[in-house]
């Protein structure tokens, strides 16, 4: 339910996939066999105002900064599904 208007109608909206890093962390322990460690996690504030928890790829952990522009790409995961991942933005918004 929409907490603002209590509507139950759901729609799919395509987003730009662009945002900035709100926070980040590098996970060392404990290690689960499904992931390669250290795991780089980011919170991304998308242009449209949505915050999403994801991974940052194509970057060194030491280069991650709060406020850096990032863009989405999709990585394959279990069951022929894909999950959103982010990398440093390559093109100007």
């Amino acid at each position, binding site marked *: 339910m929409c907490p603002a208007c209590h509507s139950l109608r759901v729609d799919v909206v395509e987003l730009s996939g662009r945002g900035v890093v709100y926070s*980040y*962390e590098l996970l060392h322990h404990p290690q689960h066999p499904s992931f390669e460690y250290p*795991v780089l996690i980011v*919170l991304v504030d998308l242009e449209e105002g949505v915050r999403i928890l994801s991974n940052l790829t194509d970057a060194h*952990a030491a280069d991650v900064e709060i406020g850096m522009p990032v863009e989405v790409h999709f990585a394959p995961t279990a069951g022929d599904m894909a999950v959103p991942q982010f990398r440093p933005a390559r093109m100007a918004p």
Partner: protein
Amino acid sequence: MSRQALRGATAITGVGCTEFSRHAGRTELQLACEAVTAAIVDAGLDVADVDGIVSYTVDPVEETELVRSVGLQEITWSSRIPYGGGGSMGVLAHAAGAIVAGVADVVIAYRAVRARSGATRFGGAKVAPSPTSGHAGTTAMQWAMPMGALTPASWMGLNATRYMHEFGVTNEDFGRAVVQLRAYAATNPAAWGYRRPMTLADHQESRWIVEPCIRLFDCCQETDGAVALVITSTERADHLPNAPVRVGAASAAGLFEQEIASDHYRPNLSVMEGSVALGERLFDRAGYSRSDVDAAMIYDAFSPILLMQLEALGFCERGEAKDFVADGNLGPGGALPCNTNGGLIGEGYIHGLNLVLEAVRQLRGDAANQLTDPRTILVSASRTGAILTRD
């Protein structure tokens, strides 16, 4: 009923606990039974006097099992608190409210855990949303787990990193608080950290769990054990053997868009806004002053949230907890002695309830690290809390 209706109307008259260990070798039910019966004996009451029970939604001990095992005769009221450990101090508001409302006379609050030897270690990797409020986990967890954020440390680390960024806080700043907690634990025979003091260098050499905020020594101890409290009306408590520890104020604040441990969707994560609201309720609305507080027991599952709560509850300005800690204010002679049992980091993690146990002991005058004549103690689990007094 006014917001001050709870003030001084109820009191903690008994406490009980098991040993805190890494391998209890018995079930949570047995641990709960041991703590509960010890608390009833400590209160000077009989099992038949108990008519109310309250725990956390995530506690594995069923009410019916506890009633049958301990021999409780007739329960008129029971309740459970959501929000995991953040809800831990909520048992006090629920118990006090039930007693003031007249639906229970003598309430037992309990928490029993095998956080270390249980089927899954409390801080271990979880690959499916796990119960945090007695259900199947939150939607937010479904967005964290596919990305590899599988543990409480990984969920809270994102908030801590943002906090460090906003205010120029370093992991060493967290370490200074941990050194104080471990100093308290070192002289508390019940603590995991008994006779194990730690230096800041030790802290800084411990391995990263979540970089750049949480090292091994910033984490609480996964612990097996149980704690129980007996709460009753002040009138009745005044005729019981122990000096009553009065519930001066007790409240909670669960905010819109606030999650449990994976709390990532409030606009500003550098401030624990639930604790800001809790502080307003416990102090400003209930008529207490922060300067009345002689000591504080603050939920320290991970060291960053200890500093963040100090700020949010109003004991120091935003970003100044690091200086407050560095100046020694959490120590026995400081402005706000904190977690004098060693906290969840130094003593053990009975999911927060051992912090209430410590507050009661301090106010009764029989704590391992006894302060000089404390009369008012704050207990906070960030979104639930209470002010306990001896007067």
